[in-house]
């Protein structure tokens, strides 16, 4: 399973490296949301500094919809997924591979986006370990839930509208917990015992487990 996962992740990342969809489309989209958030709110530094973590994670969540949609579309287009089934690639491996690939893309996107947030909104960041750990687990959670839901909604002509409806409520605890733990990290109250970090860990573990168990059934159906 692990070998299959690595192969899948490598393949997906190679496709991304050559097509550059995340770089050319999803990243600019995330940046645009950062800018329009400032239009919708107030441009006074105090306001933007305060809401920076929430806006950051909202931008990530919206971008993740495109990423997970694409991760699954790679297999559903031209029935490439059937080929994987014929080769006997482990379904848990496919899931973990897709999650890894989406995770890597989102994590890099977050790194660039964080620079954008720091420049545009100007928050002061204190607790770097908490920032990084929360981002890590939040991204795992979003990727795992996202890949699973994207596969569930695949094959539907209404997928573009269905996926956000399914994914946003499910990942809302991640949005909340990641925002809260970043708020803690941005203030002086940062500690690695942050309860919101624990919630993020629980969420990502639960969704990884659910995916490893059910992904095969979704593919077969």
């Amino acid at each position, binding site marked *: 399973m692990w070998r299959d996962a690595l192969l899948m992740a490598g393949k997906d990342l190679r496709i991304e490296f050559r097509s550059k969809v995340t770089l050319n489309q999803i990243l600019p989209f995330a940046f645009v949301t950062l800018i329009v958030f400032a239009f919708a709110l107030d441009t006074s530094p105090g306001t933007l500094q305060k809401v920076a973590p929430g806006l950051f994670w909202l931008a990530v969540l919206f971008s993740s919809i495109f990423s997970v949609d694409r991760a699954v579309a790679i297999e559903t287009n031209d029935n490439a997924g059937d080929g994987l089934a014929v080769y006997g690639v482990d379904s848990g491996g496919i899931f973990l591979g897709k999650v890894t690939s989406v995770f890597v893309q989102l994590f890099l996107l977050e790194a660039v986006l964080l620079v954008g947030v720091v420049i545009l909104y100007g928050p002061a960041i204190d607790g770097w370990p908490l920032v990084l750990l929360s981002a890590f687990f939040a991204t795992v959670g979003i990727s795992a839930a996202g890949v699973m839901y994207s596969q569930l909604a695949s094959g539907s002509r209404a997928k573009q509208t269905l996926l956000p*409806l399914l994914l946003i409520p499910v990942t809302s*605890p991640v949005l909340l917990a990641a925002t809260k733990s970043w708020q803690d990290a941005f203030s002086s109250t940062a500690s690695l015992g942050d309860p919101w970090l624990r919630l993020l860990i629980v969420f990502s573990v639960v969704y990884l487990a659910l995916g490893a168990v059910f992904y095969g059934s979704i593919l077969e159906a």
Partner: protein
Amino acid sequence: MESKRYKWTRRAIGIVSLLLVAATVIFGLWITPPDVVQGQLVRLIYVHPPVAWVAYLAYGITSIASTLYLWKRTRNMKWDLLAASSAEVGVIFTALTLVTGSIWGRPAWGVWWTWDARLTTTALLFVLYLGYLALRRVPATSHQRAVRSAIAGLIAFVDVPIVHQSVVWWRTLHQGATVLNPSLSPKIHGEMAMTLLLGFISFTFVYAWMLMHRYQIAGFEQKILDIELDQILEERLHEPGMESMQVELSPDVEQIDRHSKV
């Protein structure tokens, strides 16, 4: 589809629920006294918690039925239809929970809506199961739809403990549990407790009655699909030039037929 026993059970439950709801109305509006603190407003307590309970019960049934469908030994299209029917009733009751809560919140808290943990998560639960119902409308074979929605139903149910946890964490305005509080000593007594209990029982009966109706309709819908499929296949087989295909096609026809049987 409908056996006589099913029909009579459904009717009996319908009549009992009507009587129970009538009793709850009489007790809730006339017999019980107004509350010392909340006055007449307390009467909503005979509706709001029971409605919320039914919503949770409905989602519980959806999860159990979904699990039974996913488990290969108990796999039967009936579980899928039951899960769908229960989720639909659950969504109605979640909406009612939000509406009755809002009606209570306006005079009690001064606002229609507040960003309290339980309110917010109930709203999320509502959207979550709306998503489940939307997923069910995606065109697919019966089996495909059943597996996908069963998994979606189970994932949605995983949200419930997170709902609970979040209540404990950011509990703000919503009052704590009245009956099932940690010390297990109910803060409500006498006639009011009895009426609340009556509310719980009557709304559970209403749920059972609605579920039986919805389940039956789901069965009919499935049957219509099967009949339409049979008709299309029949027409195709009798098109000019298709006679020679009949022998070859028949095993497939049988397979599709078996696949979509309720």
